[in-house]
């Protein structure tokens, strides 16, 4: 066991400064090529946008308390939900886990000193900022009212709002995703430490690899479809203009060719995070590791072939509907397998209920609900009845927000001690995790119900029979808002007052835990070596108490 423990010679420890102390000027942050600092820059920016998008939807939920509205015009309402969608999808969810935790942890996990192209990594953050500034301009110039989906001919002809700047913002931020994807794939291929074979990669690294592939192959199609909308709106080039024989439905094909895989861009990283967390807090290896990897790959590839299930009522042919319906049922199989495997990971574990685990359990519950309601929407007749209703709204929020944000929070708490070197307040975090789960369900279960009863989405005024459900949902949203604000408080507090964390407070396996917290600039004091499969929790002591008495590192050896 002693050979698996890192023992730093005192001289070396004094040499290693943390990445946080590599420079304290603003410029040292803005011009950094250190993947860890870029991760922090990303974390700050997406948090800002998360709360902007959150305010937008807060206003919407407040307005919906009354069936006839009470403080917004319909135009303002439409702009509020559109900006919520655009910001949350492209400026929060898509970059959320990859650009923050992926950037911070992925190179360390595979034993690399940095990502493959550090300057490209910084460029990707600047592209994000440029795209974001367009979106801020849209906000200040009165907003955009097309819905986040930009469907023509409404977006190209009939909307009287800032469609073009909004589309350019999304276009630019798309290239930020592509840059991140290219970088991560090259990193995983070429910078793995000696002994880190493909089937020794932690599942989070696998999920980053697959999600990068999806980003690289899907995002350009979104970019092109938005370019075509801009060309039509600015120069009148009639690509989707039905009056000369163009087809608005073609835009939907191109848009969903990106935007369905985009759902996987959001959820695959979440799956990676909770795999790490379940293994660590159940003190078990992940059940069916190889199957988990194959499931990720299958979802990544087959996810590209199911986009048409967004178009069952769009004027797509009945045959295409059946093909896409079939493929959608197929892609549900690997998702189901992942749920079973996470459940089985708990079997015979030593389960602890620290905040990351609570968030991960929340993910599991919400992902199961979201996934199963996905089956409803994959079957053509039910989708025809439920599409464009609150049922769909609730379904994709359960996956993309319930699932991804829970996993995002799980990851933030799990790696917080590594990133900052501090411990957060455990009880406050547990409370926030529970509040988030309850608040989320209170918000969206009413939406499932009213959606199936017939409440269409994107409605400013609505039939008063649905008011009770809307009020419940708005109440849940208020609770959710509190649960989202809580971490800002206790995590911020921990930055200055939290206990020192130590290198491996969870007794976790994985190379990122075998280096000081916070890590030094090049991540490791000595080149790491990997000697065994991931998640060897059963080899390194079963009880948490044991771990705490004698901190034992997982696999490998960083000497």
């Amino acid at each position, binding site marked *: 066991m002693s050979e698996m423990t890192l023992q730093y010679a005192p001289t070396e420890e004094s040499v290693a400064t943390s990445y946080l102390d590599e420079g304290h000027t603003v410029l040292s942050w803005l011009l950094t090529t250190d993947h860890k600092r870029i991760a922090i820059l990303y974390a700050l920016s997406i948090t800002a946008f998360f709360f902007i998008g959150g305010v937008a939807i807060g206003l919407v939920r407040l307005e919906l308390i009354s*069936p*006839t*509205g009470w*403080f*917004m*015009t*319909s135009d303002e309402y*439409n702009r509020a939900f559109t900006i919520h969608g655009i910001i949350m999808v492209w400026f929060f969810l898509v970059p959320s886990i990859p650009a923050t935790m992926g950037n911070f942890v992925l190179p360390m996990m595979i034993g690399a000193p940095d990502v493959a192209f550090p300057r490209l990594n910084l460029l990707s953050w600047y592209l994000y900022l440029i795209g974001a500034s367009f979106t801020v301009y849209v906000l200040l110039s009165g907003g955009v009212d*097309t819905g986040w989906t930009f*469907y023509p*001919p*409404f977006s190209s*002809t*009939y909307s009287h709002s800032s469609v073009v700047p909004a589309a350019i913002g999304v276009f630019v931020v798309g290239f930020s995703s592509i840059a991140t994807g290219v970088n991560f794939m090259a990193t995983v291929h070429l910078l793995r430490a000696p002994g880190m074979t493909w089937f020794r990669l932690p599942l989070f690294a696998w999920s980053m690899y697959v999600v990068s592939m999806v980003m690289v192959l899907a995002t350009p199609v979104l970019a092109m479809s938005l370019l075509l909308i801009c060309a039509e709106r600015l120069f009148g080039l009639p690509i989707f203009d*039905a*009056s000369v024989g163009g*087809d*608005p*439905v073609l835009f939907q094909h191109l848009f969903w060719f990106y935007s369905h895989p985009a759902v996987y861009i959001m959820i695959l990283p979440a799956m990676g995070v909770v795999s790490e967390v379940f293994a660590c807090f*159940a003190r078990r290896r992940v059940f*069916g590791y190889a*199957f988990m990897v194959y499931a990720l790959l299958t979802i990544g590839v087959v996810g590209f072939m199911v986009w048409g299930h967004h178009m069952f*009522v*769009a*004027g797509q042919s009945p045959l295409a*509907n*059946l093909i896409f*319906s079939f493929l959608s*049922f197929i892609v*549900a*199989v690997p998702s*189901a397998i992942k749920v079973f495997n996470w459940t*089985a990971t*708990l*079997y*015979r574990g*030593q*389960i602890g*209920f620290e905040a990351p685990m609570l968030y991960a359990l929340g993910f599991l519950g919400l992902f*199961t609900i979201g996934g199963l*309601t996905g*089956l*409803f929407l*994959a*079957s*053509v*007749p039910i989708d025809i*009845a439920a599409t*464009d209703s609150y049922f769909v709204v609730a379904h994709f929020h359960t996956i993309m927000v319930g699932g991804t944000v829970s996993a995002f929070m799980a990851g933030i708490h799990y790696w917080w001690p590594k990133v900052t070197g501090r411990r957060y307040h455990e009880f406050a975090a547990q409370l926030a995790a529970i509040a988030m789960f309850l608040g989320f369900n209170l918000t969206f279960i009413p939406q499932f119900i009213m959606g199936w*009863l*017939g409440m*269409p*989405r994107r*409605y400013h*005024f609505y*039939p*008063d029979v649905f008011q009770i459900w809307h009020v419940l949902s708005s109440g849940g949203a208020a609770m959710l808002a509190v649960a989202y604000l809580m971490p800002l408080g206790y995590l911020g507090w921990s930055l200055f007052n939290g206990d020192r964390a130590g290198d491996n407070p969870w007794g976790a396996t994985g190379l990122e835990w075998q280096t000081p917290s916070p890590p030094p600039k090049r991540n490791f004091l000595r080149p790491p070596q990997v000697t065994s499969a991931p998640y060897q929790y059963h080899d390194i002591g*079963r*009880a*948490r108490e044991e771990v705490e008495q004698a901190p034992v590192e997982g696999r490998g050896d960083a000497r």
Partner: protein
Amino acid sequence: MKLTEFTTAASDYAAHVDALFILLSVVSGAVVALVAGLITYFLIRYHKGSGAPRGETPERLDREIEIGWTAATSFLFLFLFWWAASRQLSALATPEPALEIHVVAKQWMWRIQHPSGAREIDELHVPVHTNVRLIMTSQDAIHDLYLPALRLKQDVLPDRYTYLSFNATKTGVFHLTCAEFCGTDHSVMAGRLVVVTPEEYSRWNAAVPEGDDLAHQGKALFLSLGCSGCHTPGSTVHAPDLKGVYGSAVQLADGRTVTADEAYLRDCILLPDKNRVAGFPPLMPNFSGAVTPGQVISLVAYVKSLSSQSVDTGQGASP
């Protein structure tokens, strides 16, 4: 408005969809119960420090379990697909339609024309137990005709026809609305599906004049000119609520009090600065030149109708 206008399964097809929904709910409920039950059991039994036996399970068993539930899930999903698809295929093979009704969508109203030439707006009268086929197109953006009681929905596209076929089996008044986001007043692009007996349908057909009545044309103008953006209860633009304004005494900004008659309403549209109402900023745009005289008449007729409640107010709240 009653919930049954949405939830009644008003056709055999709708009943089939409900059955499929219930089947899926039961299956999903079972899966959720299974997963949640297992998780709860594991969380309790294998809680940190509990006395439960630990230790590795044989790898061969793990693999068999894995293959087992992969296969089981695949078969279950294939069965569900088959069930849903066969429902869909049988729905596609509809018999010859007995009645073809044209639907034209525009921002933000539904114009419906019956074979007899009878026209209606935001209402769709159909006879019960008849194969009806809607032939739909849009004049502007994409709309979507949503008939909740029939569990049916279809996008309505510009310069292209899309179709909805159904055979209603229950008479009554049901909801009809737009489900594809189409701009400002998307949420009030709503109306009624009225299923009547064939006899009533022919009687109704004979009684309805060909063409719209003025108030309905006026409502369409009111929406399409953007009047509704300000003259809506709850609008943040400070503009007078038009409900009940016709025939009332109006206090003007310059101190006069006038009775709101047709001439007054007309002046308000064409010369908004002439008779500004007390307590409101001068925000009303001048519509002279933007509307034809005939359109002004329709608009006035619509505002009048808001006081007599013969036309719904366009807020989707209560007809």
